[in-house]
């Protein structure tokens, strides 16, 4: 029993939201296995995995930014429109002004930054709720897209398309695989092992209770195993394909933002603001600045997502970005973020996004129509969040915990709501 408990506590990282994340990963694996069976092995075939990443990388990139927005206690409804607006401007800049495509990408990111600064200004410095600001932004930039594009579809040049539909080149000896993908996978394996060992070292330095060695090894083995499997799948696709470029952009962003949110003061401040903005302010956190940058960052990522979609579609069209905000928000909430802010992780959101993506893909492979796919996705979102709310009321949740509950003697203690001070937090308005 204690081994099982150790496992539950230590399998995925070392913090409080573990069990929740474990549940999500468990769900993802279950869905993958389910569809692998239902589609006769199509789900995990190389070409399908590659397509899955290409189709969803832009939504997952949005989910990264959205997670930070939601953790800070806001919401951004404008991401789809911002993506479409940036997309059309970038496409036009290449078609009409002949901007070279790398410059056009920088141009697009700059547009995102300007839009983000605009929205951040209203949210942080004027104090208009983000829901309203971005609802306005949604209309504003959707209209902007149609105004500039005249609702036309504008193609983009070949070079630009790399970020959306490109692959790693085939180099080196003929191994029967895409060699660069193999190298990436190997780097991933080394990183996993290094991180595990580093974590053990850190815990030793802290004089903290060490994680049992067998768990470390099991954890490494599982992660390396998954990585090797995925790497080989991606590397063995049709010649000319590999792990997609958009997937590489995504992975780089996930790593960078995970690090930022977890290991820097700026990241901490986002959680502090979302968890209790007044307490954060009284701890010296610059509330306005945090809110401003969170909103701005979201629009920059939305711009990037828009460009990746345009690159994948080979053209910027009037329907780009429709409904993306909902997909991104759904990913974040399925990934365990709290509606009231302060809780959530990048990795959770990515897993949440992947759950939706695999579901979508699996159902399409089964030939289920778009109408029914939407119904199923809606139900999944509702159930995932309902489960979360339910668990919060019940104390903390864990899949394994719920299985082993009957064996445990220690009943979980409810958090003390001490001194009966259940009054509203004194919301003292801040002046100037």
């Amino acid at each position, binding site marked *: 029993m204690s081994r099982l408990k150790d496992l539950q506590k230590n399998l995925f990282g070392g913090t*409080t939201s573990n069990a929740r994340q474990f549940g999500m990963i468990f769900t993802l694996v279950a869905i993958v296995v389910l569809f692998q069976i239902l589609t006769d092995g199509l789900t995990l075939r190389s070409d399908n995995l590659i397509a899955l990443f290409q189709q969803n990388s832009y939504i997952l990139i949005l989910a990264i930014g959205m997670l930070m927005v939601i953790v800070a206690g806001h919401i951004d409804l404008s991401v789809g429109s911002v993506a479409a607006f940036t997309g059309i401007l970038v496409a036009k800049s290449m078609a009409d002004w002949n901007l070279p495509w790398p410059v056009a990408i920088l141009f697009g990111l700059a547009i995102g930054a300007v839009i983000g600064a605009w929205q951040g200004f209203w949210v942080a410095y004027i104090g208009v709720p983000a829901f309203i600001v971005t609802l306005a932004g949604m209309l504003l930039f959707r209209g902007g897209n149609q105004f500039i594009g005249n609702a036309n579809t504008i193609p983009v040049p070949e070079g630009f398309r790399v970020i959306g539909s490109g692959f790693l080149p085939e180099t080196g000896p003929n191994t029967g695989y895409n060699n660069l993908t193999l190298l990436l996978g190997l780097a991933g394996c080394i990183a996993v092992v290094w991180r595990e060992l580093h974590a053990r070292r850190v815990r030793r330095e802290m004089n*903290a209770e060490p994680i049992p060695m067998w768990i470390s090894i099991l954890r490494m083995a599982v992660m390396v195993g998954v990585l090797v499997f995925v790497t080989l799948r991606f590397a063995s696709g049709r010649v000319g394909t590999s792990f997609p470029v958009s997937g590489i952009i995504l992975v780089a962003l996930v790593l960078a933002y995970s690090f930022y949110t977890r290991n820097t003061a700026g990241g901490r401040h986002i959680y502090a603001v979302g968890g209790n903005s007044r307490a954060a302010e009284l701890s*010296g956190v*610059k509330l306005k600045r945090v809110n401003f940058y969170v909103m701005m960052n979201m629009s920059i990522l939305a711009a990037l997502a828009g460009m990746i979609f345009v690159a994948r579609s080979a053209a910027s069209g009037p329907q780009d970005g429709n409904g993306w905000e909902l997909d991104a928000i759904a990913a974040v909430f399925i990934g365990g973020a709290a509606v009231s802010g302060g809780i959530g992780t990048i990795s959770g959101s990515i897993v949440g996004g992947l759950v939706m993506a695999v579901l979508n893909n699996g159902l399409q492979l089964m030939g289920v129509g778009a109408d029914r796919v939407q119904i199923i996705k809606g139900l999944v979102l509702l159930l995932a969040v309902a489960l979360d709310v339910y668990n919060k009321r019940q104390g903390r949740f864990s899949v394994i915990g719920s299985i082993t509950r009957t064996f445990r003697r220690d009943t979980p203690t409810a958090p003390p709501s001490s001194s009966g001070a259940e009054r509203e*937090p004194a919301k003292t308005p801040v002046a*100037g």
Partner: protein
Amino acid sequence: MSDVPILLEMRSITKEFPGVKALSDVNLVVRAGEIHAIVGENGAGKSTLMKVLSGVYPYGSYDGAIFYRGEEMRFGDIRASERAGIVIIHQELALIPHMSITENIFLGNEPRKGGAIDWKAANRQALELMARVGLREDPDTLIKDIGVGKQQLVEIAKAFAKDVKLLILDEPTAALNEDDSQHLLDLLRGFRERGITSIIISHKLNEIEAIADRITIIRDGRTIETLDVKADGVNEDRIVRGMVGRELHSRFPDHTPKIGEVFFEVRDWTVRHPISAERLVAKHSNFVVRRGEIVGFAGLMGAGRTELAMSVFGRSYGVYESGTIIKDGKEIVLKTVADAIHHGLAYVSEDRKAIGLNLLDDIKTSTVAAKLSKITRHGVLDQVKEYRAAEEYRQSLRIKTPTVDDGVNTLSGGNQQKVVLAKWMFTDPDLLILDEPTRGIDVGAKYEIYGIIQRLADQGKGVIVISSELPELIGLCDRIYTVSEGTITGEVARQDADPETLMKLMTSSKKMQTR
């Protein structure tokens, strides 16, 4: 004695919250037609007792029994107690600002004709009720457009709409000016003549003395005594003795202060209310703090102590009007909390759940939250340093937790408070302002926190303690300022401090009397 029938009897009421026993074996007897006052220090358990009575804490969540008009009552919620004619009017008024007087009076209790609200009848009844409480206003006036005093009357009218038999007023005059208070007290006397029983909770002892028939004193969650005002010849001093009377010195660790020079001084500090700009929450306040000194701020609720402290702490409350802060002989300007932290100030807030802690965080994250730069290297948080810092405080402050990875919401009130203290000690402050540092904490933990405060002073830091518990200030502080209506009204040295003296200064609205 027993010629008057008993309306309400609460028998050995005990109410526990996790970690705290708020009420223990409390008895209360209220006779029909009297005005019964309940007094006690903040946190003594008065409000909890009234919440038990009114069903906010439903039957089953407390021990003991409530007899009302000779029958045992088991209220499941507020509506049940209201049906029995017990209506409580809270300190924070439960009115909706953008609705009219009539709408507020009948909210949830609307007179109906068919399925629709009969506004004609409502307005007519509202006028009658308003006349009973002496409120002359158009019943269609919005609540936000009338003053606090009149709002209070609307609350009482609302109680009458529910056919009240026992009216409970929690600090009814706290927010009222002299005239409005007087009007309200007259009104209560009028009710008494008409046979309505009232329970009044108040800090204003002069008012209690003037109006109450009998007084029940509660201290530390226990009934101390019930006094008959006329028969026992009760006066203010007698009440104060009952409220604070206990041995003070055993509750505090022994401590010999090592007081140094004045290093922190606030001059002519004036701050406006954040919303109603004509109100001053701090008025020309002056105070000094010496190194190694524990300075107390005594004052009644709403006296403006918290507002004063927060406005000094990087203008985190109100709108700065005038005043200077001098630290170590130099004037400093603290426009933001970050400035204040940078200049060695720390403010441990009164309400740790609402504004002191992020309850979603774990202990180590909370400990370092106010000074992340101390554990940052090349822009990256050093988790080993973080863990070590938290672990150090866990040991030195004896925070009771298995590991610092646990969430702060798993801790008891006293241990949460220690985490907040740790968070601010981590910023290496020169001056700590502790706002109600022991509120809602049991006696043992209080003792430990007093020890921490004394150690901080011994390290040469200045400490300001804001507290509503006079014994705490008297036992802990080297010097005490009294605050009333945003002004410092007195300064009392430790050896001169006694509850009576302080209470008088706290309730006076005169300027500074130095003794």
